[in-house]
Each structure stands twice: as C-alpha cells, then as structure tokens.
C-alpha cells in the first residue's frame, strides 16, 4: 500500500524544470506547489486505520451492543480503575453521576460530555490505558452502552449501533459555548 516511487522521478514530474526557469526571474511560472510528493491513497485503504468518530456518526463501524452485554466486559477491563458502578477511584475519573452545578462540580461522561460519539471514539482509541485499541468494535459498542446506561442515558436493552448512537441525547448537550470563532 505504501510503495514509494523514487523521489527524483516524482520531483521531475512535479516541476523541477519550472523551478529552474523561475530561478532566473519568471516567478509567475512557478506551480502552486513546486514540490508534490504525496502518494495517492483511498478512503478504502484507510478503513481500518481511521478511528475518528464525530457526533454525526460518520465512520462508525458495523456491529452493535447493549448495556446488558457490556456489563461483563466492563467488570473485566474497566472496573478496577473506574469502580464497579463507574464511581471512579484515585487516579481514575468517575464515569457517571455528578453534576456541573455542585460545589465542587463532578464532571463525568454522564454529567458533562456533550456527545455520545466522544465516548465511543475515546474508548476505541485510548482505552484501556494498558492496552489501547485491543477492544473489538462490538466490545466498544457494548461498553459505550453500559456506561451510558449507568448514568440512565439509555435503557439496559437499548441497541447501540451506527444508526442509533448519533441520536443519543446526552444530558449536558447544551452545556457548551463554541468560542472558536472569537
């Protein structure tokens, strides 16, 4: 998939001769990119590699899971750090419960995170910390459903998949002010 072409040959194709003309003052002849070495690749070639899942659910994988199915794997792989009911422990955040309004606030997946997609995306790419990316897509659906259920966001038998996940309404979905344009 990543066979390299000789750099010299590609540089020729991309306009080395144009550059040599430009060097005597004809800058208008310069191509926008005097060097263009990127190798074409297709989205299909990136299918197993691109893990990004945004709130619109685009790029969510096949598979599904329910909280009932996620309970066992949660206790096997998550509870040691995050607590048997998602209450957290020293060095590991609570996942459920809490509120932004208490003093101090307790910011959890349930009380704070605005999008369910973030939970799926993060668990798939970064959890568990000792073995990231070791969970199957089905396991990530199951665990996502279980954590959401612990906070009462979805029912125990709610089937989470690429169609239902984007529609999950998180409690704090209106809690953020996008200041990126400021």
């Amino acid at each position: 998939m990543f066979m390299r072409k000789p750099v010299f040959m590609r540089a020729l194709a991309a306009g080395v001769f144009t550059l040599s003309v430009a060097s005597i003052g004809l800058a208008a002849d310069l191509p926008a990119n005097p060097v263009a070495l990127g190798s074409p690749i297709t989205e299909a070639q990136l299918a197993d590699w691109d893990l990004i899942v945004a709130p619109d659910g685009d790029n969510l994988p096949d598979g599904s899971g329910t909280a009932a199915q996620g309970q066992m794997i949660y206790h096997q792989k998550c509870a040691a750090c995050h607590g048997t009911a998602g209450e957290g422990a020293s060095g590991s955040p609570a996942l459920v419960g809490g509120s932004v309004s208490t003093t101090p606030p307790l910011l959890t997946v349930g009380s704070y995170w605005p999008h369910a997609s973030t939970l799926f995306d993060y668990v798939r790419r970064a959890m568990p910390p000792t073995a990231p990316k070791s969970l199957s897509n089905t396991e990530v659906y199951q665990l996502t459903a279980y954590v959401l259920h612990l906070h009462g966001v979805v029912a125990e038998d709610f089937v989470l998949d690429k169609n239902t996940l984007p529609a999950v309404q998180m409690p704090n979905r209106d809690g953020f002010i996008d200041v990126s344009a400021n």
Partner: protein
Amino acid sequence: MDTKNNPQHVAGNGLIHRRHLLGLGLAGIGSIAAGSALGADAGMLNIPSWSKIPGNGPSEYGTPSPFAGDVKRLAGGPSATAPGSGVSRTPLHLLRGTITPNSLHFERHHSGVPAIDPAQHRFVIHGLVRQALSFTYEDLLAYPMVSQIYFLECSGNSGANTVATAGDTNAAAIHGLLSCAEWTGVRLSTLLAEAGVTDAAAWITATGADAASMGRSIPLPKALDDVMIALYQNGEPIRPEQGYPMRLFVPGWEGNVSVKWLTQIKVADAPAHFRDETSKYTDLLPDGKSLQFTYPMGVKSVITSPSGQMKLLRQGIHEITGVAWSGHGAIRRVEISADGGRTWADAHIEAGQQHLALARFRLPWQWSGAPAILQSRATDSSNNVQPSREIWMAAYNPANRYHYNAIQSWSVSAQGDVTNVYA
C-alpha cells in the same frame, strides 16, 4: 541630575528606571546601597589547576557542565493507572533568555512517548479533499520549510494558582508547562493545497500515533494560516517527547492542539469533539456552562527571578527578570510592581521581540530589606492586559484549571524568603 550616581526611583518600594540596567556601575550601586557592604576582599589570585593541564577533547553530543547545577525538568512520578501519562515542567527560574533548550522543553503525554521508526511512519491527509495523500518522513524533508520562534504553553499551565490556598512552590511547579523554541517545518497549507481542500471543508481533525491516538480539531482558517508540520526543534530533529518524527505546531494556541507524532489530518465540515476538547481543555463557567475551543493562550507574564522558594541574601540592587508572552500577538509592555500592585514601573523588554514568542523583561530593584510583593503585568500588541487573579477567578467556576493567565505575586519577607502568594 546625575542619573548614573542617583538612580531614579520610578515606582514604590525600590523600583529603579530601566535605563539603569546597563548604566549602573559600581559607583551607582554603592551610592544607592548605602549602608550595605560591598563584596569581601577578593584576595590574591593564583593560576587554577585547569589552566595547567589539557582538558577533555571534543564530544559527539554536548552536555552541561557538572558544576552548572541541577538545571532539570520538574518531572512528576509515573502514573499508576495510565502508563506513560503525565507532565514534566521547564525550570523557568533556572533559565535566562527566551529559548528553551530541547532537553528542558516541557512535556505532556497522554499515553507515553511512542518509539517511532520514521521509515515506517505515515502521515495522511484525507476527508474533504480532492485526493487523499500519504506522506513519508522523507517526503516531508524534501518540501520548502519555514523557521519560526514560538512559545508553547499547556492549557493547564499555572492552574496550580486557581486552588483556594496558594501553594508554597516555585516558578517551575506553577508555570513550567511553558517553553519556547525555534520550530522548523512544512507549512500545512502547502500540503492541504496538494490534497485540494473541497468547498465543504471547515475544520481539520488531527490525531497522533501515540497509544492514546490523541486527537484535536482546528478551524480551517487557522490551519491554512500559520500552522506547520514541525520536523526540527532548535535546529535538530524534534525530540521523541516533542513528537518525533513530526508534530503539528499551532502557534499561539493551547499546547494540546499541537498534536505530537502526527499521523492523520482528516479534513471535515465540523469538529470531531474528541475527548480532549470536550471532557478536558474546556473552561467551566460560574453558571455551569463551559467554553469550548478556547484556543489562543491569554497574555501573561511571570517574574522568574526572584521567584518562589528563592532567598535574597543581601540588600541592595537585584535584577527583577522574567518572561512574557501572548497567543494574541507580540508583547508590547511589561510593568513591574514591588508593592503589591499599588505602583507600577515599565520593565525593559529586549528589542526585536517576536509575534507569539517569549519576551524577556528586566528591571533593577533596590531591596531595602522591607517586605515586598513583586508582580508583573503584561500587555500585548492586541492591547490585551494581563488580569488580576481576582478578576480571572470571578470569570470562571472555581473548579476550572485551564487558561489561567492572572498576575503572579511573589512575597519577599524581611528575611529575603520569596513565596508564592495571592495578593
């Protein structure tokens, strides 16, 4: 007035006009430090032993003098639950100038430093582009590059001073998630042009090749402006802990968006809302709402000497010095107070201070032995003024630890002990 022998006091509690930085000769120091002794008798000089024997020859990679002291990062212990996660802080109080040596650049890792073989590493641009492209490290080395000096500051820097009681710590512990280096690399706009961004594009989403696959979203206008893919740091290949073989570098913005070990840029019509831009690095407000995508780091300064846990050993002239920076431009002004903000004097800022880089400021101070509160207050080229702690704290929920840029206060006791205080 003979300003050389009668230094002009410009603000309360001993601050002296910045013109005396270079002009204060011994006569000047003697006259204003009246009553305090000059140095002890220098005595007879002998030729030292190292002038009589040849020293070591050249070496392949230099190291500091063993006599130069413990100039090291302040590194936290290993994480019990998240291997490789954590920070180390730049020892700001032990450095002078504006450039951070590569070995002392602060670190923040979310799942450790990956050991990346550059020959196997791939950087891909895809998503809303006409042609998705894959680049090797060697490919990027062949592109035209730019070199710029930029500061990098973690969004959580100085958050230690948001807690209710001021900790008895030093400048590194409080403010050391701040560094400044010359970064060299390929403009991201060059590579985005090669892939051909489509009309629907509005954001880029970037991820790293670390075990956390740390990701952040950046609005397209910034990505096309001054963002680079950095390959060199102070002239040498960037260090593994800074993203070797390549990192995104987003000038002036919170450090977390400068994704290290960069492997993916997916051009999109909206942000991805990654964990580190929703659960983390968002600013909780007093009413329970949160600011999201708070990118530029606010105007800020800190006196690095004298600073927390130092001790003044003599009365008389001391140089107050520190660093100032802003994610909104260049530093235009730094004022110093020695009386807790009652009166202020303009510090000297080195000429040629650059956009989005650290500025070094200095001002002479005659310490009389009386208690003092030292503060610095920076103003940037966009006319932003560094706020007081009181004003900053009122703007956020008390639990917010991000984007703290308030004025730092160092207390100097009659015994010369310098302590972090809220004032």
